[in-house]
């Protein structure tokens, strides 16, 4: 798979083009314009970026006030900080008060690699899934990122958009329309389904391609909207392929995998299932890629997981 741009870069480009033609578009950020690839935006549109300094609670509170007055606000800050230190502001000032702020968590998951747990966000999906009135979007590639930002711009409700910073290959089929709340079937198959989101999607796709060589046919769903979950696509996948593996760059607790498991059980679909995520432990140190490999978020390991699940067939 040829590498494209990081999703973070696509986010910044898309936002800049929106902001050029709509003065109500605002970025609020916590000394993170560089990390958010927004230095160019800030130079071109200095009136449309509000800096709070290193103060994430302030980012969200101020964003809520701006949104209440009709501004189209993108609150941009590292995912690890904005969804933990400012969680109460997201819960109360954005979600509960229903001010449509787009919270953009940058360098999410283990993007910061060896910088340690302070900089990892492996809790964010779980925390926000339990808060009413916020959509959770985890784009995989350039197309999903661009479309998610465009949709978020038009959406009159709160969203959390979770972005990584590694270069991503294009995985989204150009023929398939993008809609928030509806997952993308990026590869069809009938033996097993990978349900992945964000930067793990290419890994799942790689496993599907590797298994094809062994005669195993895998479906791959890019579940870019983790909340609300596209239950119908998941249920169909379980019925049609008979086995499901969830794949995510998040704690095994409370993320995509548990969301999928709940849906399957509630529909009485007791299919072979495994949940591949970051386990509940003190993380091994290393780059994002090394951490992925360590915890089975690799092509080889995902392929082996699939073979184990469907071994009897």
């Amino acid at each position: 798979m040829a590498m494209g741009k990081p999703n973070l870069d696509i986010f910044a480009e898309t936002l800049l083009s929106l902001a050029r033609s709509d003065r109500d578009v605002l970025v609020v950020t916590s000394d993170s314009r560089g990390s958010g690839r927004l230095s160019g935006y800030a130079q071109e549109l200095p009136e449309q970026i509000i800096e709070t300094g290193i103060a994430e609670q302030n980012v969200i509170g101020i964003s809520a006030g701006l949104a209440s007055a009709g501004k189209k606000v993108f609150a941009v800050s590292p995912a690890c900080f904005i969804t933990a230190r400012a969680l109460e502001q997201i819960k109360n000032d954005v979600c509960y008060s229903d001010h449509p702020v787009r919270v953009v968590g940058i360098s999410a998951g283990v993007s910061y690699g060896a910088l340690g747990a302070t900089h990892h966000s492996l809790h964010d999906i779980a925390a926000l899934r339990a808060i009413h009135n916020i959509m959770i979007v985890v784009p995989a590639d350039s197309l999903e990122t661009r479309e998610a930002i465009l949709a978020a711009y038009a959406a009159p409700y709160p969203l959390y958009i979770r972005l990584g910073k590694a270069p991503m290959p294009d995985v989204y089929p150009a023929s398939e329309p993008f809609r928030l709340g509806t997952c993308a079937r990026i590869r069809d198959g009938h033996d097993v389904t990978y349900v992945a989101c964000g930067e793990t999607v290419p890994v799942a796709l790689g496993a599907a391609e590797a298994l094809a060589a062994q005669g195993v046919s895998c479906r791959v769903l890019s579940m870019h909207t983790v909340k609300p979950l596209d239950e119908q696509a998941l249920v169909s996948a379980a019925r049609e392929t008979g086995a499901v593996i969830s794949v995510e760059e998040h704690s095994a607790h409370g993320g995509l995998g548990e969301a999928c498991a709940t849906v399957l059980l509630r529909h009485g679909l007791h299919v072979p299932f495994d949940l591949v995520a970051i386990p509940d432990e003190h993380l091994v140190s290393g780059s994002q890629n090394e951490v992925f490999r360590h915890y089975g978020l690799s092509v080889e390991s995902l392929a082996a997981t699939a073979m184990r699940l469907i071994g009897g067939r």
Partner: protein
Amino acid sequence: METSERTLRLKSVSYREAILRIISQAGAGHTGGDLSAIDILNVLYNRILNVSPQTASDPDRDRFVQSKGHCVEALYAVLADRGFFPSAELDTVCRYGSRLIGHPTRAVPGIEHNTGALGHGLAVAVGMALAGRLDGRSYRVFTLLGDGELDEGSNWEASMAAAHYGLDNLIVIVDRNGLQITGPTEQVNALEPLADKFRSFGYALRQVDGHDIPALVEALASAPFERGKPSLLLAHTVKGKGISFAENQAGWHHRVPSAAELERAWAELAAQRAALEGS
């Protein structure tokens, strides 16, 4: 006493009666803080804010964010009196299914932001003020903070931003009643020298007796206190003000009056009304 002052002071008596009625029927409420804040709310809604039920969604309306959300009974009493919702609805506060819950929410006409957790209102008010500046609108943003909630660091983050952006369309009012739930603020987590702290954070500051109606009107009408700076009105108040046995008692933070206490309160408020009518 001028007619307009007498009118407002009579309103304060009525509001205090309404607060006690709400709290006794709901069986819950924040009596002490309601009574310390009510004269400020009275002046805001009857003399200062250019907002009414008819202009509640006008983009040019003044905004008010009550950061000390627990004193919602005071806000409900004033909003009902101003016609944002029927006064009869005050009987439903905290009842099953009522939109009038124990903290402010946007489900209630006239309320701009949901509060309840402390230390949230100021940052939101900063955002509203920034939006007004960006849009070239002339509205002002008022927010009312308790003194206890100043323990929350988020207030100081927001204060830095207010000064950094020179938001002279922002007026922060602090209900300085000196008490929080556990006891005196100076014993719980000392705030003093509070005025110096606010000045050093970049506010233009004025101090006022938060129960002196003409002084409140004069101070709030004079905002911004200084061009290019956010205004801070440090309103020195008495927790439980107007009900002698509740005044300055930390225990009245969220105490519900007994039947006997209510009788005494009605008598005291009736005497205050009679004195005003005779003046």
